[in-house]
């Protein structure tokens, strides 16, 4: 059984036969395993030596990507690893998304789970995919040796050509594919010495650029199945509210509205197209029952957190005797930093396509957490996990939103499918307003910091209290990542502060039992707030000590050479030792921050110009990154550039606020994201390293906000301690 996507432009595209294809012909649930042995045109692949690579008689090398491509460049990165050891020609390589099968495609850093997140894609795949490529290469070589009756050791493979110099024989992968399939899979393959890399560390074009430049890339929003209905849902205005009564008459009166169904998440209106379904949704008259709803306000949450921050919390780290040292210092400092809720706001509003039949359930989704979604859906429908087939499509951004242990929008789709008894495939589409208001935010946090300096200005003590909701409480990750009541994601970046401070204490107050706002990881997770608190407070210490911010940090980073390395590199490239050129339109300032997240080290120097009225521009950001071996340097640069833009948007104006339980923002006019005219000039410098590669999707974000605030302080003498910055310099 196969399901055809009806999309006209896709069909034309496939006729043209160009580029990376995610498959016009989508195999049904019962064909999942057979599909793995087919190439991207749906043809039987001549040679499929393992779960990650297939080679067709047409000489096409298909790399099966187990991670979601959501912009971070992982399809290119994963393909680079395979192609490097296979010695393929980059042009012959195409990529397709893996099916949900945690036995073959689990994230090696997540144990038995398949999913994408925590900047782990390249880190966990580096050896696995190189082995996959090397193993396929060895079998091609064996096939050539047998065919040409020459020793395998005399055969070379270069850029997709297998050759034997003495006999002058050569062959393409496609010509050898069928014979290679008959060779034994080697038990042991030797990976290349990094000095022999021809693709890793070089510039290769992204595998998804052409289709993303011509409107052909297939996102969930673009899927259209025969008979499919589009569902738009009325969600409650407050979290936890339910439908008391609904008057559907006006909605049903909209021509084209076919179904109106109640689900636990609200009321869904279904039509053949989005616009009709949305008109129907907007015409619903719903009386919401707020008796179980959360009615908190951001201002009250912050005030409550402030009270909590004055009391001891659970200890996440304790070095020395902080209370004693705080009392004994020559100079004492104290500061409080506040962080709002933040929406992920990917450009593609959330959506999911699902259908069910006697064989099972099939889903089309920017699928970021296969194992979680698969088990959630299996439990919901009473199916075996393997009866839940997940087609991983490109995601139009995610930033963490599509990997939700609660599977919120996926489960919402399932409820609609169930409510219509599976009579038609359903595409759930959230409007931008739904996306902004229906939850799953970076939690609101408050940090209280105190420090003591000795007579020379060096820090003697550092005491930090973090207050906020737990992201992991109540999720399957709780067992592994919440220890003794401390959610590792609440204190990452704080509890592992790298600076040499003899008396250091980090405490946590978790507020999840009182504050019922749905929260989730958001690009760089805990480091979105801990990096700011640490790097701004350290700057305050340096100022109090009368020290240079870079020199002060370096003095405390003796045991952390990779932090020091990126800090020195960024400072050097930014010309830190030379005075900043004066501004034509205002006072200039330069600030710095360094932070490790997901085992990647990033330092950024930010330069600003502040006008007399307090308005400012971010002129330049110099970024240094140490992520071990740079697999795709240009992708790394792109992720640093993008991370800086993402961090800057949040620092300037990002805030989701609640009033009486209702989210006050709705679209990009009141939750602005960065515009091109706000984008600074960015320079990225990559540290040369032989260490294993680590991730780059997230680590570019954390240093930006603290470096910016430190730069604004350098320009104005005013210290911003509450994000977003907004109009605070104009006050």
């Amino acid at each position, binding site marked *: 059984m196969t399901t055809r996507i009806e999309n006209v432009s896709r069909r034309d595209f496939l006729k043209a036969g160009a580029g990376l294809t995610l498959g016009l012909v989508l195999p049904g649930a019962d064909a999942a395993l057979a599909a793995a042995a087919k190439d991207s045109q749906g043809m039987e692949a001549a040679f499929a030596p393992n779960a990650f690579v297939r080679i067709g008689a047409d000489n096409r090398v298909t790399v099966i990507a187990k991670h979601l491509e959501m*912009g971070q460049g992982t399809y290119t990165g994963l393909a680079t690893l395979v192609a490097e050891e296979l010695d393929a020609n980059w042009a012959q390589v195409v990529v397709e998304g893996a099916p949900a099968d945690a036995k073959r495609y689990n994230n090696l850093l997540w144990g038995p789970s398949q999913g994408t997140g925590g900047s782990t894609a390249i880190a966990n795949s580096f050896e696995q995919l190189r082995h996959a490529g090397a193993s396929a290469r060895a079998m091609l070589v064996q096939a050539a040796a047998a065919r040409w009756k020459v020793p395998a050791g005399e055969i070379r493979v270069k850029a997709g050509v297998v050759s034997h110099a003495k006999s002058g024989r050569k062959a393409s992968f496609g010509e050898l594919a069928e014979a290679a399939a008959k060779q034994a899979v080697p038990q042991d393959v030797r990976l290349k010495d990094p000095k022999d890399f021809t693709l890793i560390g070089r510039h290769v074009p992204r595998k998804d650029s052409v289709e993303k430049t011509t409107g052909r890339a297939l996102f969930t929003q673009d899927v259209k199945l025969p008979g499919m209905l589009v569902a738009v849902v009325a969600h409650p205005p407050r979290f936890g509210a339910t439908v008391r009564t609904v008057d559907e008459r006006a909605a049903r009166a909209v021509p084209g509205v076919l179904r109106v169904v109640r689900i636990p998440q609200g009321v869904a209106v279904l039509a053949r197209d989005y616009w009709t379904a949305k008109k129907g949704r907007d015409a619903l008259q719903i009386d919401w029952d707020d008796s179980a709803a959360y009615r908190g306000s951001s201002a009250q949450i912050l005030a409550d957190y402030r009270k909590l921050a004055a009391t001891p919390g659970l200890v996440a780290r304790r070095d020395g005797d902080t209370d004693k040292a705080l009392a004994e210092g020559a100079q004492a400092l104290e500061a409080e930093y506040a962080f709002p809720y933040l929406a992920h706001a990917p*450009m593609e509003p959330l959506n999911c396509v699902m259908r069910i039949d006697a064989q099972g359930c099939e889903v089309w989704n920017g699928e970021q957490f296969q194992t979680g979604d698969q088990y959630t859906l299996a439990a919901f429908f009473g199916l075996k996990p393997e009866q839940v087939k997940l087609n991983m499509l490109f995601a139009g951004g995610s930033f963490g939103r599509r990997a939700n242990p609660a599977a919120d929008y996926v489960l919402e789709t399932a409820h609609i499918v169930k409510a219509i008894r599976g009579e038609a495939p359903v595409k759930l589409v959230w409007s931008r307003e739904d996306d902004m208001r229906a939850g799953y935010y970076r939690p609101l946090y408050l940090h209280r910091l105190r420090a003591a300096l000795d007579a020379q200005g060096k820090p003697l003590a550092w005491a930090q209290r973090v207050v906020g909701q737990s992201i992991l409480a109540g999720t399957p990750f709780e067992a592994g990542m919440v220890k003794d009541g401390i959610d590792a994601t609440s204190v990452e970046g704080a509890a592992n502060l790298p600076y040499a401070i003899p008396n250091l204490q980090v405490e946590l107050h978790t507020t999840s039992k009182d504050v019922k706002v749905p929260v989730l990881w958001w690009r760089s997770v805990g480091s979105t707030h801990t990096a700011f608190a640490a790097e701004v407070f350290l700057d305050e210490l340096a100022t109090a000590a009368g020290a240079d911010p870079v020199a002060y940090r370096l003095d405390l980073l003796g045991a952390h050479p990779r932090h020091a390395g990126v800090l020195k590199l960024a400072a050097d490239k930014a010309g830190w030792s030379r005075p900043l050129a004066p501004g034509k339109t205002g006072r200039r300032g330069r600030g710095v921050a360094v932070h490790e997240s997901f085992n990647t080290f990033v330092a950024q120097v930010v330069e600003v110009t502040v006008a007399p009225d307090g308005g400012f521009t971010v002129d330049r950001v110099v970024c240094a990154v140490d992520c071990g071996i740079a697999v795709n340097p240009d992708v790394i640069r792109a992720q640093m550039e993008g991370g800086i833009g993402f961090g800057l948007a949040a620092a300037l104006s990002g805030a989701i606020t609640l009033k009486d339980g209702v989210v006050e923002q709705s679209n990009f006019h009141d939750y602005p994201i960065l515009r091109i005219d706000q984008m600074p000039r960015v320079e990225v410098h990559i540290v040369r390293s032989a260490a294993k590669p680590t991730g780059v999707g997230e680590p570019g974000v954390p240093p930006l906000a603290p470096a910016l605030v430190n730069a604004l302080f350098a320009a104005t003498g005013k210290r911003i301690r509450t994000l977003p910055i907004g109009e605070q310099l104009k006050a």
Partner: protein
Amino acid sequence: MTTLDINGREHTLDVATGTPLLWALRDTLGLTGTKFGCGAALCGACTVHLDGQAVRSCITPISAAAGKKITTIEAATDGGDRIGTAVRDAWVKHDVAQCGYCQSGQIMSATAFLKSLPKGKQPTPDEIDAAMAGNLCRCGTYARIRAAIADAARTIA
């Protein structure tokens, strides 16, 4: 019934005249290269050309598009349009796209902008920023968008 001239072909649609052009393109005609981002002309993901002008198709009812030449990303980048082709090639050369979802709109705005310039005129960085300020990219590909537009402008000069 509304007849629309899309990418040089006439299409007759049986949809309500108030339907935004975006949904007629996407859901009725299957031209899904034009994207839905905000539904309120705030992000530019849905940008198409109406008689050569960049417009937000999410707030343009089909009644307002009737009688005009509508161009979408599919035609702008199919190689038949000199400036669209230059923009497409520059986008690929600079590997602008990350998630890619906003890029159809970015490319349509960039193409309309370059077409609006006097022949041979090279846009300044400020002019590029001003022309593109209505197109949002959550991935932050702006530095490369600037570079690609400047590159395309040199190509067509």
